[in-house]
């Protein structure tokens, strides 16, 4: 009864096929589901009367429609996209933090410069001073806020890394379980399609966290490849560990190994990139900007004079790490360089002011050396505080001091034998520190003897000018030498070829050490987190040291502040302070823009790959309906065969009746 048995196999096979179709339709919307198809195979022939006749149909298997190449590409795309997505989310956060507009760091810096311009018209106006200080405080607060928000983002990224690491390790555990079951089924010769789908779904989830690919293992189940293919495991028994310390860019290794590995994709790779690149870069540049802002402004402010004039005492507000270390190493501000620091000492009783030069090399000399040099000047003293990390400078015996580099009231005229006393006044406006030498031509009486003159040369011997001081010169009156310097000679005699020299000071601190340790500073702090308007200035606007010559209305320091606006003093001398902070925003905007482009690209590729996969593995209900009809008809046909055979046999049995 071969016909019966063949038909019965057909009934079974088509029933199974109908079941598969039903399963496909049922899972049409199940994520990760691959449509299944029943593969029929003809049963072996049987010898009937010397003729080989087919004996029906067998189900060779129910197979998933799966293309490992496209699926692998999608996994890789998933990983890369997840990395970009993660970077984009955080980069957008950074972009928002650094965004332009009212209240932004850019606007506040712009406004502070504008306030300085306004203040330049009336430097001793207390209201304008107050406004400028408040705006400056608003700027420093904004810098602090941005720094704090970036730190918060860093922490969030760190927490996200920990969470992702936990998640991926959990996924690996689940994958391991599935993989074992699959291996077991496969050893039994069964095709665990749904388990395979589950495993691939798990792998897809893993791929969003770390880059992963799977290949069928010769021992059954799947092997896992990680870290851009640099690591392969025959199983999914993989655990990852973070090897870095907290607050450091994350590094990873396989559990039990200390070999640092880098992910090629996935969220962890994106987060790692963020930590190493965007966040580090932005924070570093913001700190760098804050340092430049502090150092450049304080270099100028430290040599200015407040409304009250010279100082009785000045305390440093930037502690050094070690008072005995070279200042270059003990502070974070700079660049510092070897040079001179000029300090003026004023006798408050007589008003006499002397100018002293201290040579200082921050690369080799410490805060202790600075204190020693300062105290070696008559009527000055210094004490250490704050565990020897800070210093206070003070005048003694009714003397005050300052670092404005003004001309001394009494010149060193020890080389002069005549009775005429020279005096230098004015505000030096030259572009660099120099020494002017005044040499007399002719002997005689100032203002009386015809033909007397004084020749002025700079430190290179270059002629500044020749000036008549003979008949026609009014003794005691000012002669404009140039660059804001004035010479006067009291009535008396001068002697031919005798000379005297006067330092002309553009910057009383060539080294930058005053700004580095925070003497008479506008700011306190050294980076974006700590920058603040100095306590003294904040509490007393008259402490803004805006004068260079001691006149309360002098705007010498403001002019220098204003000149900073156009000076490339930030970003290693490549940008202005404003450009520097703007460039941070622009660069992160470029980054976001690029990441957005990449995201769109990965999205399109992912869509294409999904389409490819869908075209192979996706369930099309219409198609399944066709299959349903096909198997239904086959089933009906087999039933008809059995029915026909039954009729045939009935006819046959009727013969026997």
């Amino acid at each position: 009864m071969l016909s019966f048995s063949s038909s019965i196999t057909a009934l079974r096979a088509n029933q199974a096929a109908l079941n598969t179709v039903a399963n496909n339709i049922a899972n049409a919307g199940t994520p990760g589901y691959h449509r299944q198809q029943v593969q029929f195979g003809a049963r072996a022939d049987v010898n009937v009367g010397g003729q080989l006749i087919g004996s029906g149909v067998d189900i060779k298997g129910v197979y998933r429609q799966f293309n490992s190449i496209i699926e692998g590409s999608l996994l890789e795309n998933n990983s890369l996209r997840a990395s970009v997505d993660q970077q984009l989310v955080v980069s957008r956060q950074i972009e928002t933090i650094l965004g332009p507009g009212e209240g932004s760091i850019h606007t506040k810096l712009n406004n502070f410069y504008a306030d300085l311009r306004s203040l330049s018209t009336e430097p001793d106006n207390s209201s304008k001073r107050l406004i400028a200080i408040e705006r400056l405080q608003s700027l420093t607060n904004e810098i602090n806020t941005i720094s704090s928000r970036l730190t918060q983002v860093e922490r969030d990224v760190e927490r996200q890394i920990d969470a992702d690491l936990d998640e991926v390790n959990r996924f690996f555990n689940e994958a391991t379980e599935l993989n074992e079951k699959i291996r077991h089924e496969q050893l039994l010769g069964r095709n665990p399609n749904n388990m395979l789908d589950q495993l691939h779904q798990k792998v897809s989830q893993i791929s969003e966290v770390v880059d992963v690919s799977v290949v069928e293992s010769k021992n059954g189940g799947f092997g896992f490849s990680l870290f851009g293919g640099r690591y392969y495991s025959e199983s999914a028994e993989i655990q990852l560990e973070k090897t870095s310390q907290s607050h450091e860019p994350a590094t990873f290794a396989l559990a039990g190994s200390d070999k640092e590995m880098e992910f090629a994709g996935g969220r962890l790779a994106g987060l790692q990139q963020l930590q190493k690149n965007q966040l580090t870069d932005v924070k570093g540049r913001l700190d760098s900007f804050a340092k430049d802002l502090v150092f450049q402004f304080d270099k100028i402010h430290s040599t200015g004079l407040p409304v009250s004039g010279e100082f009785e005492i000045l305390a440093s507000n930037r502690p050094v790490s070690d008072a005995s270390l070279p200042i270059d190493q003990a502070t974070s501000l700079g660049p510092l360089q070897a040079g001179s620091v000029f300090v003026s000492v004023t006798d408050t009783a007589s008003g006499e002011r002397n100018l002293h030069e201290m040579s200082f090399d921050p690369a080799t000399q410490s805060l202790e050396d600075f204190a020693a040099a300062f105290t070696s000047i008559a009527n000055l003293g210094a004490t250490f505080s704050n565990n020897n990390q800070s210093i206070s400078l003070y005048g003694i015996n009714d003397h005050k001091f300052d670092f404005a580099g003004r001309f001394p009231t009494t010149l060193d005229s020890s080389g002069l034998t005549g009775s005429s006393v020279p005096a230098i006044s004015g505000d030096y406006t030259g572009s660099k520190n120099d020494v002017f030498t005044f040499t007399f031509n002719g002997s005689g009486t100032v203002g009386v003897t015809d033909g007397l003159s004084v020749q002025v040369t700079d430190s290179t011997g270059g002629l500044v000018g020749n000036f008549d001081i003979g008949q026609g010169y009014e003794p005691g009156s000012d002669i404009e030498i140039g660059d804001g310097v004035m010479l006067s000679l009291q009535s008396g005699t001068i002697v031919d070829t005798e000379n005297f020299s006067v330092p002309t000071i553009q910057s009383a601190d060539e080294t930058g050490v005053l700004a580095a340790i925070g003497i008479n500073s506008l700011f306190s702090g050294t980076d974006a987190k700590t920058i603040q308007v100095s306590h003294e200035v904040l509490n007393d606007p008259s402490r803004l040291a805006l004068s260079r010559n001691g006149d309360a209305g002098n705007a010498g320091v403001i002019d220098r502040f204003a000149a900073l606006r156009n000076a490339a003093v930030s970003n290693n001398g490549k940008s202005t302070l404003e450009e520097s902070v703007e460039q941070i925003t622009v660069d992160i905007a470029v980054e976001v823009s690029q990441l957005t482009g990449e995201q769109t690209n990965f999205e399109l590729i992912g869509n294409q790959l999904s389409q490819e996969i869908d075209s192979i593995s996706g369930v099309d209900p219409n198609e399944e309906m066709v299959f349903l009809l096909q198997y239904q008809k086959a089933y009906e046909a087999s039933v008809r065969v059995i029915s026909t055979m039954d009729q045939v046999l009935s006819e046959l049995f009727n013969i026997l009746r």
Partner: protein
Amino acid sequence: MSIRNTSNFLSDQVRYYAQVRSSNLSFLQFQASTGLKHSRSSDDPLAAQRLFSLKRTTNKLDADKVVIDETEHTLNLSVSNLTEAHQVTRAAQRIGLDARQADPDELSVLANEVDHLLGRLVSLGNSTDGGRYQYSGQADKTIPFVKNPNGDLPPYIYKGSQRSFEVDVSENVRIESLKNGREVFGSTNRTTSVYIGSTGAKPGPGTDNATDQGTLQVTHTATSYIGGSGVAAGTDSAARDTIIGAVGTHNLTIVDQSGTGTSGTIQLNGGLEYPWNASEANLRIEGPTGEVVYVDTQNITAGFNGDIDLTADGTISTDGGSTVTPIDFSNNQIISNSTDQTVTNVDSSEITRVGTESIEYQGTSDLFSTLVQLRDDLRNTRGLVGDEWDDAIIRRDGDIERHATQILDVIGVQSVSLESIVALRDRNRAYNLEVNQIIDDVENADLTDVVLQLQQEQNLLEYTYATSSTILSQNILDYLR
């Protein structure tokens, strides 16, 4: 595109494109609602960078404008003040002119008028604007002109800064907005000093540094007579002789009428003959121009007839005798004043008599001092006589004229500054407008374009929905019976 597309894929497509369209619509809605082209810098980083630069420029221009406006206000006020000050100088000059035809009573009235003008001038010199002194230079919170507590000249002492206040009204354009008061009301250019008196002292060729007015006291110390005649200085000679001079400046003519040295006549510089006798130890002899010597004629050589030379030494002083300098009859003696530490160069070669010279250090008085000098000359406090007074009034007129010119010069400079400022303000305004237009182009959305795009996106979304609806509604079941 694969030939096998599942309904899943089709619905995914619908979702994806609907999201794309909705996202675009959302952005267009943002543009239409805010008028801005970009919601964040990353929408167009290049535009963001450009905007930073442009906004920095407008911020600078706005800051410049504040400075320009303030400086313009300050300069306008100063020009107004100085114009009034100039009118005061003209009024003072008119008074000087009137004074030359006025009688003594009128002179007193005119002097009082000058006093009134002086008050107006001081008020202008000390004028303020918003608590800032206009003529104190960089010490704008310090009153510039303070009354001299000693009551001497100068009547007002300048306490302001020696430096004028300058401000950068724009890049590389620096303007003096608050003048140092000395440059406005201070002395002009020193010229040769004027000596009023009869001592014969003259200004030396050296340059003085004393200012305003002063006195030169010429005092006699000793007269000595060339030997041979027997005449000697009288007992009051040192104290009361009024002649000063080296050998050859003055002479005595002695005639021994007795032939025995007991009596005769004596004359000084060819003046009146005075009888003498051998008992006179202190004979007063007056010369033709009133010069006086006291001689001792007790030991005149018998039979002496003739001229004898004499030298009359003296000292000069500019500080009332605190510091005296022996006269060396040179063309330039430097006389120090211990009170104000100044020096005066005196040509003493022609000093012939004791006395007091009134010195006017021309061109060294500030405007206040000049007005005080005019007032005092109107009251003739120096006791000038005849032409001396007329000349002094003429000199005051000249002094005031120089100050008026100086003020006009300052007005001129400040007016030029104002012109520059007005030009700068106009340029600033035009440039700011231009930059703001560029900002507008870069920052603001083209609303027409936005509306058109909005319509286009809306259409596309509708098409997406329409086509999706059509495609997804196709089902084989509809055809299976």
